[in-house]
């Protein structure tokens, strides 16, 4: 199979994630879409490592996973605090700053 198909898949997953961030309302779902974008990037990294014939891309994908895990810790803390004080995880409800 042509290896560039993995790149197309990665681009499609990234786009689904990016569109999801823009159109979804629930903060948790928005966050899941961001994680999807990171995983699409991982697929691109691994594919490029295969194309270029070196290991840098595979190593990079491990770093991405670790950073994504850290992001989950911080992100869920913020979203949960938000939910507890408002009883809603909707991004649209968070509009005090718009006045």
């Amino acid at each position: 199979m042509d290896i560039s198909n993995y790149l197309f898949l990665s681009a499609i997953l990234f786009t689904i994630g990016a569109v999801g961030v823009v159109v979804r309302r629930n903060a948790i779902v928005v966050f899941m879409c961001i994680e999807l974008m990171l995983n699409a990037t991982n697929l691109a990294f691994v594919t490029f490592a295969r194309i270029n014939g070196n290991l840098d891309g595979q190593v990079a994908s491990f770093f991405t996973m670790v950073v994504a895990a850290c992001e989950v810790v911080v992100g869920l803390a913020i979203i949960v605090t938000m939910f507890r004080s408002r009883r809603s995880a909707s991004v649209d409800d968070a509009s005090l700053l718009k006045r």
Partner: protein
Amino acid sequence: MSAPVLNYSLLAPILIILGGALLGVLVEAFISKALRATLQLGIALGSVVLSFAWLWKVHNESSISAAVKSVAMDPAGIYIQGIILILAFIAILLIADQDNFTAQASALPGSEEESVAIAEGKQQTEVFPLTLFAIAGMMLFPIATDLITLFVALEVLSLPLYLMAGLSRRRRLLSQEAALKYFLLGAFSSAIFLFGVAFLYGYSGSLNFNEIAASISASGNNSVFLYIGIIFISVGLLFKVGAVPFHSWTPDVYQGAPTPITGFMAACTKVAAFGATLRLFYVALDSVDGTWKPIITAIAMITMVIGSIAAMTQRDIKRALAYSSIAHAGFLLIGVVALSQAGLASSLFYFLAYGLATLGAFAVITIVRDSSGEVTDLNRWVGLGKKSPLIAAIFSIFLLSFGGIPLTAGFVGKFAIFSAAYQTGNMAIVVVAALASAIALFFYLRIVLMIWFAEPTNDSVTVVIPSFLTRTAIFVTVAATLIFGVIPAPLLDSAKNFAVFLR
């Protein structure tokens, strides 16, 4: 295969800060609440001072292999780290005023748990280790010469800031909302950044800046992978510096975050992000400047103009300063597109001039209060000059420095960066920059006039007597702003000497 060799002496400034941060986490867990705040402040200030002293010791050394090939401790990198440490020191003096921070971030806003925590003085001090972690990320960001190190540094500096934005004691819902917005948009932009990293790696087969530059000059620059990589990475970096059209988070986050944190973000994050942007474009992508220069030039222009115009329409002082910081991001982008040694040198000077005035201005905002906390409504600042002439005068100096009035550091910075662009023959950007500064100046002068020449209408607004640390921060920043404005030569010369990226 041999084990990697690390040059610990050159990496020590970052390691000291990280050590201080870890120590701070332990102190938070094990030390009684009576000692905690003092100890945390001591650790934070101590590690910044120690780190700066070590940086001073090694400032004549340089190496591009301090950590294999992942970081470059070169003159420009060391200079930017020094600026970040100086600004961070002043920011910690402001953060030390714990009255701005929630006693317990986990307690619900307005709950009994929260009022009990405030009444009993159960103040948590997690903000100090978080600040130190952020500083460590900021110091790593501008010296990273490897896309993965760049990404990790970006996250190390961003993650603590997301949390710190939500720690305000008053108006907590607003603060939590700022944290949520900053987090979601920040994570979105770093995912985009990472996608760009993947494609730049796919194009060049390497994550290292120099090897990317080598493969660009070897294989030509007409690859679609290269373009995707440059565009996506630029979006991530432009988001961090707050350039239009990726600026929409800036006013919301600056308004909602606790004011000392806003000052810290506005000054230090911008310096770190511009340091990284400069290095990426100067070292890795300089031979494809025909591709990115027109785009970045256009972004610089609209950033300057939109930032300056939008600042005028704001009624909240923190939002207004946020838009002013967006305009300054536009001015700093001039240094990126100049792509010359003069452009780099003038950016280094501008960092310090802008950072000092920004920290000073936000420090003043923390002490203008009424019974419910800080007063950020611009209409209530009317006539402040009659109530507290000294603070009003100091705030006016910061605004004039933002506006670029002679005898302030801001003027020298603007002049240096405009003349760097003029030398490269980029007349269009100089003209737009001059127009944008005129618009911005109008906005700053309007606030100055409002403070001095209008009758006070609201008597509940007062300037509280600042604590010793806040007072120190305000006086240091105002003195430096004036000194670097009157005798800029020593600093300009040192910036010129240090304006070298090793490759």
